[in-house]
């Protein structure tokens, strides 16, 4: 399941919904990304994060990433929920779930989806700190993490 939405989601409720759909899977891995409260470079307190995205492509790209994960590992299920629009520090931006008979596959697929989402899903963050608003720069460390999966095997 892929869901891209403006309104907040409840990570606990989503967890139980995913488990209900996958009660026969031995292992469920998940990752939750939260809005950070301080900027990397200026160390200033962030008041608002605004997330722009590319409607249409976002859902397709997340679907392609989940399909790639399911082609690579024996998964029972994989889900991504991603917000866009304005958010405040501590809000959940993204939640990824994977279900598999084996925990190693669930972990690997969950991290793979996050790594590819970070470098491929068309979202752009803009942070407001004090009176300044600035676009967040992409991290080369994210590219490095994503490229691990292509060089692995």
């Amino acid at each position, binding site marked *: 399941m892929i869901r891209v939405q403006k309104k907040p989601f409840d990570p606990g409720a989503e967890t139980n919904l995913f488990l209900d759909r996958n009660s026969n899977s031995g292992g469920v891995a998940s990752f939750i990304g939260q809005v950070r409260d301080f900027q990397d470079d200026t160390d200033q307190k962030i008041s608002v994060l605004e997330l722009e*995205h590319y409607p*249409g492509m976002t859902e397709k790209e997340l679907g392609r990433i989940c399909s790639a994960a399911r082609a690579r590992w024996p998964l029972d299920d994989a889900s991504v929920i991603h917000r866009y629009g304005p958010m405040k520090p501590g809000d959940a931006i993204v939640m990824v779930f994977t279900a598999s008979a084996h925990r190693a596959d669930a972990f690997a697929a969950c991290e793979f989806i996050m790594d590819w*989402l970070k470098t491929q899903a068309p979202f752009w963050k803009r942070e407001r700190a004090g009176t300044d608003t600035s676009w967040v720069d992409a991290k080369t460390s994210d590219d490095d993490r994503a490229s691990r999966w292509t060089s692995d095997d």
Partner: protein
Amino acid sequence: MSVTVLYFAWVKEKVGVGLESLSPPESVRTVSDLVDWLKLQSPSHAEAFSDLSQIRVAVDQVHGPFDAAIDDAKEIAFFPPVTGG
């Protein structure tokens, strides 16, 4: 040729609009050709595309290289490296 060109994040801010319906000449065959042609449309376009190392492209909602053929693409998008998640 008629194509929808989309801009996101600071590319959109620099160009000044998020969407343009354009009809580039026949000679525009690749994304690179389109960028060269766009840079001639206004100083804002030229400014937005001044450093292509900071621009990514999607052709019909699929990531692609700058030398990708446009063919009968309906929608071409330009944006900075993504920062979601």
